Each structure stands twice: as C-alpha cells, then as structure tokens.
C-alpha cells in the first residue's frame, strides 16, 4: 500500500488518449488584455464530450519571449483530429482574439510539413481584400484591418499529437477538505509548462462514466464517486469520504502529463484526504495507462 502524508494512493491507473494539440501565443498591449483574450478563447472548452475542443491557458509569457515583444500568454487547444482542431482554433481565434482590443495571435509549436493547421490564412478573409501579408524568416503573418488598427495573426500553426485525459481523483472527508486539496493540486500543476487543466478552476466535480440509461446521452454522472448515492450504488468512495474532485490534465506529450499528475497528487495528499484514485475505462478506451504507483515511486 502506498501512502503519502496519510493519504492512500489506489493501485489503479488513469486512462488517457491521443489528441491533436496546438499552442497559441496571444499578445496584447497589457498583460490584462492578453489574459482577457486568452480567457475568452479558452471558454466553453472543458471536454470534447460537449465542446469543439479542450483548451486552457498554459502560462503567462514575458514580453522578451513573445514574437512582438508585448506581454503574452500561451494557450493549448486539443481536438480529436487536425481538421476538427483547425475548425475550433479558427472559430475561437476569430470570435475571441480577433475581436479583443490590441490582441495578436502567433503559433507556438514547430512547423512540421503536413502537420499544420491554417489559422490566419483562413481569418484573413475578414479583411475583405484589405488584408496585408508579411513573410519573415519563413513565417507568414496576416495583418487584418480592424477598428483599433490591425489584427496580426500568423498564417499557419504547428500541431503535435498530445495526450488528453490524464486524471486523478481526490476523495476527501469533507467538501472543504477535498476542495482545498484540489486547489493545492491545481496551483502545483499550473507551475508546469506543456499541460492545461481544461475544467473550471482546473478540476471537475461532475466526473462522468461512459453511457447512460438514457439512450441519447453518451456520458452520465459517475455515480460510484457521488457521495449522495453511497447507499444506492456499489460505491467507490470509502465510508469516511463525502466529496470527490477529479483533476483532468491535457498535455503536449505523455511526459508532461505524467509530471503534472506526479506533482498534483503530491500536492493534494494531506490529512482529510482519504484516498487518491484515478478514472479509467478498464483499459479499453485509451492507449496510455498512467499507473499511480509507478508515477509516484
């Protein structure tokens, strides 16, 4: 049995799967406006169960590291295919960054032939023939006239095959204790790069299982982790647990997700947290099985 700070770590695994990822560098005149654009562009992007993409803010970027020397942030966006990702990124940049005062958007991943999505190249038509193209060192930038000057957006963005669905569950004795542990885990994971936590505040309270008794639903509440159903179902919660939160992690590669799980679990372990578990589908859904005990050794 593995315990950390009095918290038992279940001998189970998180089941993750590949998704195509893009990294967007968003800059603006001030850090606040860059943050505003990033928050808007990553809204309604918690899970591909119901959203076009999973997205989140990866980190803030100081001016000296951004392409145009202005304050910036980086975003990661994930979808099941490159086509779906392009559609989601173009829509999100078009509705949330193009529209945001002073913001600009650049590619944040290496360009590999045939592994790219066209973002600025699709949004340029908004310029109605007045758009300007600039090509420098192999990178093309589109300048689209807007009412505060120009929106600058890179033509093509690189993609990688990322890993989505890394997760762990925090089973707390009270809601307050589970919440504090989850917040600590999120703070620890957010210090890392290469990963995002797509759910509100970085974790999800409505963990789901595949399927439902209602035919039209693809997913429904994960009843075995719901404290109010402990008396009705074959619960996975220990008797002393009365709340659970699930940290869901998407990363640009498996190593980034593994490191995030490692750091997050260690931060969450504390008195009042009975167990750390993980969500999986019996190994049938995703090719990546992240075993908690192996990660923490």
């Amino acid at each position, binding site marked *: 049995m593995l315990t950390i700070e009095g918290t038992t770590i279940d001998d189970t695994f998180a089941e993750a799967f590949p998704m195509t990822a893009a990294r967007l560098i968003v*800059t603006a005149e001030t850090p606040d406006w860059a943050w505003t654009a990033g928050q808007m562009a990553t809204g309604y992007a918690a899970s591909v169960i119901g959203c076009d993409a999973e997205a989140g803010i990866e980190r803030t970027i100081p001016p000296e590291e951004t*392409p*145009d*020397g*202005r304050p910036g942030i980086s975003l990661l966006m994930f979808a099941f295919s490159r086509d779906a990702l392009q559609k989601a990124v173009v829509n999100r940049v078009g509705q949330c960054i193009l529209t945001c005062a002073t913001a*600009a958007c650049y590619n944040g991943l290496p360009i590999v032939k045939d592994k790219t999505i066209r973002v600025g190249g699709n949004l340029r038509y908004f310029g109605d023939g*007045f758009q*300007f*193209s*600039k*090509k*420098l*060192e192999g990178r093309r*930038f589109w*300048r689209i006239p807007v009412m505060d*000057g*120009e929106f*600058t957006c890179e033509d093509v963005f690189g993609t990688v095959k990322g890993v989505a669905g890394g997760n762990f569950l925090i089973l707390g004795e009270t809601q307050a204790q589970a919440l504090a542990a989850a917040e600590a885990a999120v703070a620890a994971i957010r210090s890392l790069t290469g990963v995002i936590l797509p759910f509100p505040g970085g974790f999800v309270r409505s963990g789901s299982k595949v399927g439902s008794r209602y035919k039209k639903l693809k997913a429904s509440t994960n009843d075995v982790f719901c404290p109010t159903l402990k008396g009705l179902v074959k619960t996975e919660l220990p008797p002393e647990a009365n709340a659970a939160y699930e940290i869901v992690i998407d990363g640009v590669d498996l190593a980034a997700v593994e490191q995030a799980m490692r750091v997050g679990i260690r931060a969450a372990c504390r008195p009042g947290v009975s167990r750390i578990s993980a969500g999986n589908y019996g190994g049938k859904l995703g090719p990546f099985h992240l075993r908690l005990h192996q990660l923490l050794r």
Partner: protein
Amino acid sequence: MLQLRYYGTSNIPVEAEGITPDQLAGKSAAEIATVPVQHGNAQVPLGEFFHVTGSADDGDIRIDGDCSRVKWIGAGMTRGRIVIDGAAGMHLGSEMRGGEIHVYGPAGDWVGAEMRGGRIHVHGHAGHLVGGAYRGSPKGMRGGVILVDGQAGNEIGSGMRRGLIAIGGPSGDFVGISLIAGSIFLFGPTGLRTGAGMKRGTIAAFSERPKLLPTFRYDCTYQPVFMRIYLRQLRQWGFPPAQLESRQTFERWSGDLVALGKGEVLYCVGP
C-alpha cells in the same frame, strides 16, 4: 574554409559567377584556381586574380582584398556562407536562393538583384538598384533579406515581389518604384518619389518624412504590431540602426493610387 585573396590590378571587370559554395565545394585549391572567370572578352583562370587556399567543402568562403571590380560574387548560390573583407563589385548575390553573404566594405550596384532567398548583409554602402529587377524583367527581388548598414543609391527594390530590404543610411530616388510586394525599411533620409507606382508592399521610413507623390493618401497614425516583429528580427541579425530603434508610432499612407493603391508607406513619428 576556402580563402581567396584578390591580388588583381586590372581595371577591366572580372565576372566571377563561379564563386559560390555550390560550385566550389568538392574541389581542391588547385582545381579552384583553374575555374574560369570572364575578364573582358577572354576567359581566364580564377587563379590569375586570386590566391586560393583551403577548400569550400564546409560551404564557407572568405574573400580578402578590394574586389570592387569583381562582379557576380555569390550569384545564384543556394547555401553556405561568403564573407568578403573588402569591397564587392556589381551583382553581388544576384538571383541567390539561400545562404549568407557578408561584405565588410562597400558593394556595387545590383546587390541581390532578383534574389529568391538567403541573406546579404553589406556592412558598408551599396550602389543603385539594391534588390532590383533587371531591365525588362517584370519582378525584382522575390524573397530573402538584404541589409545595408550604410547608404544606397537609386531604385532600391524596384519591382520587388517579396522579401525585406533594410537600408541604414541615406537612400536615393525612386525607392520601391513599381513595388509589387515585400518590405523596404529606410533608416536614413530618402530621395525623390519614394514608392512611385507601388502596387502593394510596405515602405517604412524611420528618419525623415519621405517625399511622396500626390497619389498617396494619409490614413492614420497608429502602432502596427508587425513592425515590432520586424525590428526584433533586424536586431537579431545585428543590423545596427535597429538596435536602438524602439519607436512604434507611424503615419500610414496608402498608395500609389496610379497603380493598384494597396501599398503603404509608414513614417515613424514617435514613441
């Protein structure tokens, strides 16, 4: 590294189109000395004008001496690096497609004429028609970068289609004449009729207000974000005038309305 030391004294130009890493790689110094060059109406071996040592197998060529009468150095090259410690003659890097040329001295006319890619950095003055189109040709420079730390002559970027030209010192008349697209940055004062007949593309002036034709229209005064990307890149290339340039406010003028009118002249007016 291949070292070529020019010792010629003839006033008749030497046309040395063969001096590129592409053409000299794999040859011994003795073989390189026999490479023919055009001298007036006669073909003579390169060794009659240059002392040759080393080899160009690593793509690196260093040329020493006053080569102001040696034309076509680096013409059509696709890779490697040529460093000229001294003057370079006309047509330096003409139609080149890749690699780098550095000139620590002045260069003649037609630097990078109709070039497609790569980078030429003249750490001195350059002549007329930098990145220009040869007479009768529809397009000038089609890609790549030309940096001139000092002054340059007339018709810089004539008929240019793509790429970047930056001139650190004063420039002559008709900068960007018939510009099709691409970017020309001018850090010194300019001559007459800047941007005449330009269709698209950008001419940015950082020193004094360009003398524009009446067929340009003032649009606005603003801070174009793309300019910061370009200035940062110029600084990374070690282009001296960009090192201290932090101003971001430009007047934008559209033109030339006698042509397509989708070009822009940006004049830097403040922080």
